[in-house]
């Protein structure tokens, strides 16, 4: 990953196919992940003042849950092997977490999580990620498919 973060995505940075959406692949933890970004998301990126980080989280608990979080990077992150650049101004990372404890006196609250000590994390990196942007904000979804 670059130590320097490009601030914004400019429409002329790459050729967009008809329809304005983007499809490609990015390498995350050594595994190629197919990325599909909607035209609305690309337009939102060009308007964003700061780079956007997409964090894919795989939560190991009584069920295995997938979540995608979006955050704006207001300052450059230290260089890391854990995040990958999808496009100028758009980065992705993946992490697996598990519940550190569940307390009965915290009903309804989210239990605190900690990193899951996965032996070979690249095996659990998703196969695909879609990014969209709607009035309510950023939307992301990822999944696994052995037969893409």
């Amino acid at each position, binding site marked *: 990953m670059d130590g320097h973060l490009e601030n914004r995505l400019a429409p002329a940075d790459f050729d967009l196919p008809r329809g304005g959406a983007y499809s490609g692949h990015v390498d995350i933890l050594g595994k190629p992940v197919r990325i599909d970004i909607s035209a609305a998301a690309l337009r939102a990126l060009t308007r964003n003042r700061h780079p956007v980080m997409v964090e894919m989280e795989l939560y190991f608990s009584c069920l295995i849950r997938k979540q995608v979080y979006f955050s704006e990077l207001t300052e450059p992150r230290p260089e890391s092997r854990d995040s990958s650049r999808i496009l100028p101004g758009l980065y992705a990372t993946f992490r*697996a977490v598990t519940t550190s404890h569940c307390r009965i006196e915290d009903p309804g609250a989210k239990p605190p999580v900690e990193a899951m000590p*996965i032996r070979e994390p690249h095996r*659990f990196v998703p196969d695909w990620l879609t990014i969209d942007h709607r009035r309510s904000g950023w939307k992301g979804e990822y999944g*696994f*498919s*052995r037969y893409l």
Partner: protein
Amino acid sequence: MNTDASTTDMDKWLSEKLDEMLPDKLQQIEEAKTPSMAIIATKGTLDWAYPPFILASTAAALGWDTSVFFTFYGLLLLKKELPCEVSPLGNPAMPMKMPFGPKWFQNISWPMPNLIMAGIPGFEKVATGLMKKTFKNKGVATIEELRSLCLEADVKMVACQMTVDVFGFSRDEFIPEVSEYVGATYFLPVAQKSDVCLFI
């Protein structure tokens, strides 16, 4: 030459040496050992498909050697097209809540008489759809994804050959990643040697 005395001394020396070295050695062996898990999956409904795949993928994520023996209705979990459905009939633990609408509506637990659940055609399809939507709303991985994760993490998927024969399946109905088609006599020693054995 007093051989009895020297044998006794030797035994005593050996015993003391073992007392001194053995605990550390056993701990080294224990720490270097890869934990193992064996799961026997016997059910093929949507709700019962989750536990074996979640436990297997979690164990595999932690680096354990994991095998799952799919037998009886559990064999359906190895089909290329997963046919998992769920029925609330005879399943009083299943909450009947709607995964759509405002929060107050979603919190209502609808009392469903057995007469309705048994009498309305297609009720199981509705219940299956609602459960899948509930899980999707909460971001829970699907059964297909969990199975993919297990395969990616080298979980060994073993099918019961007897079940294949009894139910008249053919092997090309199942995913090609099934490692073996065997009987219980093959899997029992695997289960015996594993650190954790679960019957689901």
